[in-house]
């Protein structure tokens, strides 16, 4: 088995584990951790989609990757797909902001209700 396949399978498993945490756990911090795992799994999955066999990282620091010396055109299939990497790069940073917001809400909820149990927070239940 190729290692990319392995990693995409691991990423899907990680997404499922995180989702299980979010759905089953009742502790708010555990749910936040589950979200974090979910995000990590999704990020790995997206990056595996940009993998190109036999290519290097998308950093063109040697002329060997160029088509010919004068033109600055990079060879076909010499580098990985930069687009998923760019997306994941920003997604991680946004992820920490969102996690922070989630945790701030949890802290505030705890200060008001002294519990981390979602089932106890019935006021917002529909």
């Amino acid at each position, binding site marked *: 088995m190729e290692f990319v396949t392995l990693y995409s399978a691991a990423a899907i498993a990680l997404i499922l584990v995180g*989702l299980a945490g979010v759905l089953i756990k009742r502790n708010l911090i555990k749910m936040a951790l589950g979200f974090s795992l979910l995000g990590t799994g999704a990020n790995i999955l997206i990056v595996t989609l940009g993998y190109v066999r036999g290519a290097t990282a998308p*950093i063109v620091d040697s002329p060997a990757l160029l088509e010919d010396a004068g033109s600055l055109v990079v060879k076909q299939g010499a*580098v990985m797909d930069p687009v998923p990497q760019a997306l994941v790069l920003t997604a991680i940073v946004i992820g920490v902001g969102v996690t*922070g917001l989630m945790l701030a809400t949890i802290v505030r909820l705890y200060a008001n209700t002294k519990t981390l149990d979602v089932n106890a927070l019935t006021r917002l239940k529909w």
Partner: protein
Amino acid sequence: MKPLFSLVMLALLATLSLRLAPLLQPGEELGQVAAHYASQGLVDNRGSNLVTSVVVNYRGFDTLGEVVVLFLSVTGIGFVLRRRQGLVLPAPVPASELVRTGSYLLLAPVLLFGAYIFIHGHLTPGGGFQGGAVVASAVLMMLLANRDRHLPHGLLSWIESLSGFAYVLVGFVGLFAAGSFLANRVPLGQWGDLFSAGLIPVIYVLIGLKVGTELSALLDQMTHSAEPEVKREGSR
């Protein structure tokens, strides 16, 4: 009732992903757009790091939006955790003198390293987001070693808003020079030089400053804002 429902959903999702997994075939050749970015990125931007080209130039407008999202979430945290009036914070246990000395000793090198990462964003792996995170971790070190100190909020918010403003201004440079927002139409320089790739390093330095200050503000709010009166000691 609810757990059962969750389990059913999970099982459904698991089977679905098992069925869909064979469709994900990594390792094939690139799509048309990606192939253009990968092969022409160096011609268009002269920056070695193609990811940076995508983040800052091809998708520069998205990145502006993402920085704004980060800003909004930090503002939201500040709003949720705003200081309550008249609440006296209990004094935290001060860190050891050695740790304080160490944090002062390491602050400048770590800041320099963060700056190195975002200044060389177009040449080596790294860039504004990573450098910003490194800068924020330096700030975190200071916050944890000196719990009684607060960040200079005025200075931080000035840096933050000025760099955001400058980002938009640089975008307008592209609009006037080439007719599209954030277009990279200034002299590109020599491939591999520090001053190359046109506006990319400028924008990435601005992003680095902005992300660094935003993450620092986030950490500061998490460590310093009004604490609920729960048990202080004995919690691990």
